[in-house]
């Protein structure tokens, strides 16, 4: 794994959050936005070709939703870290979110530089018990 910023894929079928996420990542030198996807399908193929370290994944999308896309991405590359984001509150998101293998669930409006840094720093503890390999750290 090359040393450098954490490579991030942002997935949302709604433009406003993609735009906001881009703005946040822009000011964080330790993270780099590598692609945006507007559907679950696009996320799976983008993840396969660009191999991001981190995926910010919207839960509710037309067609393949974020949970299914997460399962597929992790099945292909278990070392990928996925953070589910949603405009719904955690209690309104299906319990399936917990079983998707994602690292964390984050309400979209709480997304920000500090939260992202915190989640990333504690990703080892957050890893689901399912024996996934630890994702790479930004500094090696």
């Amino acid at each position: 794994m090359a040393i450098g910023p954490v490579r991030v894929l942002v997935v949302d079928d709604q433009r406003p959050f993609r735009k906001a996420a881009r703005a946040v990542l822009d000011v964080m030198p330790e993270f780099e936005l590598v692609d945006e996807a507007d559907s679950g399908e696009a996320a799976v193929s983008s993840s396969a070709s660009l191999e991001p370290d981190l995926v910010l994944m919207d839960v509710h999308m037309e067609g393949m939703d974020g949970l299914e896309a997460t399962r597929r991405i992790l099945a292909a590359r278990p070392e990928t870290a996925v953070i589910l984001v949603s405009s719904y509150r955690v209690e309104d998101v299906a319990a399936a979110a917990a079983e998707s293998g994602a690292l964390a669930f984050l309400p979209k409006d709480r997304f920000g530089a500090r939260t992202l840094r915190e989640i990333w720093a504690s990703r080892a503890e957050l890893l689901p018990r399912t024996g996934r390999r630890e994702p790479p750290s930004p500094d090696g």
Partner: protein
Amino acid sequence: MSAQVSSDANPKVLVVDDVPRNVRLLEAVLSPNGYTVTSASSGSEALERVAADLPDLVLLDIQMPGMDGYEVCRRLRADPATRFLPVVMITSSDTEVRVNALEADADDFIRKPFDQEELLARVRSLVRIKHYHDTIEAQAAELAEWNQTLEARVDEQTEELRASRTRVVSAADAERRRIERDLHDGAQQHLIGLAVRMRLARDLADSEPEKAMEMLDALGDDVQEALEQLRDLAHGIYPPLLQDRGLPEALTAAAGSAPIRTRIQVDGITRYEPDVEATVYFCCLEALQNAAKHAGEGATATVNAWQEAEELRFDVADDGAGFDPERGRSGVGLTNMRDRVGAIGGSLQIDSAPGRGTTISGSIPLGS
């Protein structure tokens, strides 16, 4: 069994006697007085004749060989079809016979030798009673039939009401889902984006104040967009013009922005209960949308609303393609219109035929 009302003027009397001379004697008295007389010479023949001729009254001799008069009477009483058939027994003079005649449940008895006037008087009154009885029974049967029809109709309407209530509820659910989705996909997304970027600007305020200011400036556009979407959504839920100014202005505005050329005539209507205004507004809107969608190229529409007696009436007409209301499947639009109008006690009519344009008209009672 429905009761028979002897409609012809001549009541039928069955004379039962094993002595032909007695039969002739009675016949000689009854026939000239307007009775149709038939006869039987034994108990069993009497039962056959009753079943076949449906007489209005039976004159029954007691002493007959074989089945006697008591037995015939008992059997007539046991049969529901003849339970109320008047039976007059012809007795000899002794009291024992009379008692037996009453026990056999005869309606009356006549002593031999009989008095002509007395015989005629009793026969007349019993036939009249029989006639009343038949009339009442016929009316009861008719009532029972009516009752059944009414019950069936009530069942039908209850079923239709249930179905339309279910449709109203699911239409309301669908509408709520649409609103939820519109809110979620529209304004809410903008607000989320705003929240994230505002936090970012705040985070940068100390280290890079200029960049933070720049960011805050850019947020203005998104606030505007979110507001615009909220405004559109609120308008779709309940047009502010309808709420503030009522039907005349709201319908005029809707006609002005309709995707089909529309003339409107709404003089003489004022303000009404909110559910009445909302129903008329949404029906006219849906009908105009239908006209724009289905009437075809170059069609024009008219919207009328007026008050007549205690009713608010409206119609939306176009001169376009028309359709066969009997055959075309009713979509969500027409069904919704029907249900909405029905829910406030009004009625909706669809008048259309291929090539003859379409008129949707509704009337809504304005009771207290």
